[in-house]
């Protein structure tokens, strides 16, 4: 018995050790010990959700793109974040043929793929890698095409399969794209985060081992960071790519900490567990900016929040009704209550920063009297009943659709329109939208590149109405002609005039009411330098420097 009880006697001693330990731990917390390099120069980015895949071709969600695209991959071209111009990346130069149907790219010869625990590259990037990347999307017989479901949402939305006839490797460092028709948005599409270049050599290795699915779960790219591990719903760990062809990334390690809860993400920012925090809540910006240790960055982002009418249903098939509804909405109140003033009122689907923006549009000002008159003209003197679908999630372009719907409900009541608010779980919501079950919907769009086409074709063209991404279910020949003519010419002046006309036409037809272009925010610890918001896509973290005091 003695032995078994022995551990109880030194309890007093243990207690003091424990107190000492606790005291030591808390006091040491304040100072910076001599930390290892991977920790000292490591960066923690706290994201709002888990990635769906590690291959940008397969996804559209901004969360995934932020986490993977700029960190792991490069594209043939990049977009200069300052002015939206295309700049060389993996392609050091490019030529367009006279007829605008052939594009030739000359590749850099000094680009190394990642060396990871599961892949060691034997050669630098060459034309085969570009071929593999795009053939996977285009050729249905390609061994990797149906890997991951065979859906390439971005490429499908720009009708890639019908546009690009073939991709040819002319030599090891030269690639030719042959198009079926001229398309002036082609280069911009190559510069989006989705057009990341994958490794053909890695694909061969996976094909030989018959482990094709690893292509999208254990990524190999040419970007500033290489993949280390992914713990689902917990974190993603990247290390610096030592042989990066540009200047090597500043952080030795990049950890993407997945914290879906907004309040918890804020708490982690304040305790410096996160260096950079994605999407702070707009309502909390004031509180955050008061703290000396946190900076809030903002930039006008290429997005638009809108109210789309289902034009295939009566009475929304009548342009007069649509315009009447537009006149009835008090946008200023919405900007204050929903965006807290952190957005600009939208006059067109295009944000004012776009080169094709039409500044001379006739803008619908808030005027219930005109709205009533228009309704009378359209034959609805006593108004009607309708549904407003409010998306259930928070997005940059619409931080609170339910609140917006409530405000609009009150506005519409003034002109005799009785609106009820409808919402579903996000996945069913999108499915029902694609089936056009709605009367009207509050939703929006974030651009993937600087090209104005990105706001028109995926949102309002007839082909978008067929694939179910046209929320207004609007198919108008005149409008389609304008935007396809704009694509056929490479002359920017001429394109601009087409887009101006298209915007004017939209203002008259009003298939959707553009509400606001919201700013994008990000909160950063003030000792981090070199992180900027890219208005055209995912966040780039390679240049982040931690300034240790």
């Amino acid at each position, binding site marked *: 018995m003695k032995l*078994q009880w022995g551990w109880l006697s030194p309890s007093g001693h243990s207690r003091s050790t424990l107190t000492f330990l606790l005291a030591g731990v808390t006091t040491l917390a304040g100072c910076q010990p001599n930390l290892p390099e991977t920790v000292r120069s490591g960066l923690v980015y706290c994201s709002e959700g888990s990635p769906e895949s590690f291959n940008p071709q397969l996804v559209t969600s901004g969360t995934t793109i932020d986490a993977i695209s700029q960190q792991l991959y490069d594209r043939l071209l990049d977009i200069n974040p300052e002015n939206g111009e295309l700049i060389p990346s993996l392609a050091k130069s490019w030529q367009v043929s006279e007829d605008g149907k052939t594009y030739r790219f000359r590749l850099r010869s000094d680009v190394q793929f990642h060396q990871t625990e599961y892949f060691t590259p034997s050669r630098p990037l060459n034309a085969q890698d570009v071929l593999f990347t795009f053939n996977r999307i285009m050729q249905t017989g390609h061994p990797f095409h149906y890997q991951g479901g065979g859906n390439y949402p971005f490429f499908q939305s720009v009708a890639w399969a019908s546009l690009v006839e073939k991709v040819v490797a002319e030599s090891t460092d030269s690639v030719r794209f042959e198009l079926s028709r001229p398309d002036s948005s082609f280069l911009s599409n190559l510069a989006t985060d989705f057009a990341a270049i994958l490794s053909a050599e890695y694909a061969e290795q996976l094909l030989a081992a018959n482990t094709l699915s690893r292509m999208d779960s254990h990524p190999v790219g040419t970007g500033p960071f290489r993949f280390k591990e992914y713990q689902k719903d917990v974190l993603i760990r990247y290390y610096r790519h030592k042989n990066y062809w540009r200047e090597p990334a500043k952080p030795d390690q990049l950890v993407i900490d997945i914290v879906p809860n907004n309040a*918890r993400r804020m*708490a982690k920012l*304040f305790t410096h567990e996160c260096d950079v925090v994605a999407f702070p809540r707009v309502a909390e910006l004031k509180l955050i900016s008061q703290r000396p240790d946190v900076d809030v960055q903002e930039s006008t982002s290429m997005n638009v929040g809108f109210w789309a009418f289902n034009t295939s249903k009566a009475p929304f098939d009548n342009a007069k009704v649509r315009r009447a509804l537009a006149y009835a909405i008090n946008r200023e109140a919405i900007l204050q209550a929903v965006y807290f003033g952190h957005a600009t009122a939208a006059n067109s689907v295009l944000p004012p920063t776009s080169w094709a923006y039409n500044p001379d549009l006739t803008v619908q000002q808030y005027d219930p009297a005109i709205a009533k008159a228009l309704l009378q003209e359209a034959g609805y003197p006593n108004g009607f009943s309708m549904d407003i679908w409010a998306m259930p999630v928070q997005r940059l372009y619409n931080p609170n659709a339910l609140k917006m719907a409530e405000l609009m409900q009150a506005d519409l009541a003034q002109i005799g329109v009785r609106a009820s608010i409808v919402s579903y779980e996000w996945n069913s919501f999108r499915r029902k939208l694609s089936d056009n079950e709605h009367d009207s919907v509050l939703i929006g769009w974030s651009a993937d590149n600087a090209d104005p086409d990105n706001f028109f074709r995926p949102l309002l063209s007839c082909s978008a109405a067929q694939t179910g991404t046209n929320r207004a279910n609007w198919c108008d020949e005149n409008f389609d002609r304008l935007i396809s003519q704009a694509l056929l010419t490479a002359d920017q002046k001429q394109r601009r005039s087409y887009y101006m006309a298209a915007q004017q036409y939209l203002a008259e037809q009003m298939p959707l009411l553009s509400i606001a272009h919201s700013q994008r925010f990000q909160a950063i610890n003030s000792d981090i330098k070199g992180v900027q918001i890219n208005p055209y896509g995912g966040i780039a973290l390679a240049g982040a420097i931690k300034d240790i005091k």
Partner: protein
Amino acid sequence: MTLYLLRRLFLLAFVLLALSLLAFSLAYMFPGDMLQNLTGLRYIAPEQVAVLTAEYRLDQGYLAQYIAYLQRILSGNWGLSFASQQPLLQEIGLLLPATLELAAYALLISFFAGIPLGIIAAVKPEGVISKGISALAITGYSMPVFWWALLLIMLFSLGLGWLPTAGRIGVLYEVKHVTGFMLMDILLSDSAHRNDALLNALRHMLLPTLVLATYPTTVMIRFTKDSMLEVWEQSYIKTARAKGLNRLQVLYRHGLRNALLPVIRQIGLQFSTLITLAMITEVIFSWPGIGRWLIDSIYQRNYPAIQAGLLVISTLVISVNMLTEILHTLFNPLARKR
């Protein structure tokens, strides 16, 4: 004694069997496709259905299905998680040590803080110190754990900025998973910066452990005190005092050993509460343990994970209960004789 042990083990086996029956029947009670619930496969190709039906013996009677289920459980084939499509047993193997680690440290604290405090409170039951300790214990006992946790986070993390709010270790430290117990894994790693990592892990551990330890500590204080007071009234204590031993000698030689017996039993009884509280603590501190995982699984309607999680946690609670009971008997000559 052997007979007693055998009887206990038989009871344990019986309870576990009943538990497995419950877990097995869950697959039928959950909504959705049964084959999906059993295998955890999200998409089952039509040609796979027949193969899997045969493998899971769904074409046979319930008894055959149950036996097949038991075989799978015992051979480690627990199916996949809906959410991650990873084997469940492997996932649980990664998560369970985190919960055990948290619960173990909390229990240790409650031992080393609760028992001495309880004894001190019992020495002069009417004194100020005793009253103070009792008041503290009652406060701790009645404080909701989530509220207490948030208070501590507000003070130490957000207010003073001393301690982190979430996780087991700073995310920039990469610690290889060997045993799953963070402190042990750090000591096993050959990193040159082991001490930094250790310190970092301790800082992460401090608040959750304190929060989780609060409830068992207060229980321990109250039980030790009551038990001591009861023993104090026994005639053998009076005899010892009459022999001329001083208070401390009597306390240590005669009082403590007898008073602590019921406390041991309490550990077993409190373990299920401890695990429940651990789940709440894990959620608040984003501690990557099985409790948080189970709660997430409930939100995600991840039926295979709920089933497996329930099985593991109940088995754990029952086993610990049984173990403390056996220990209690071992230490208690009276109970042993029975």
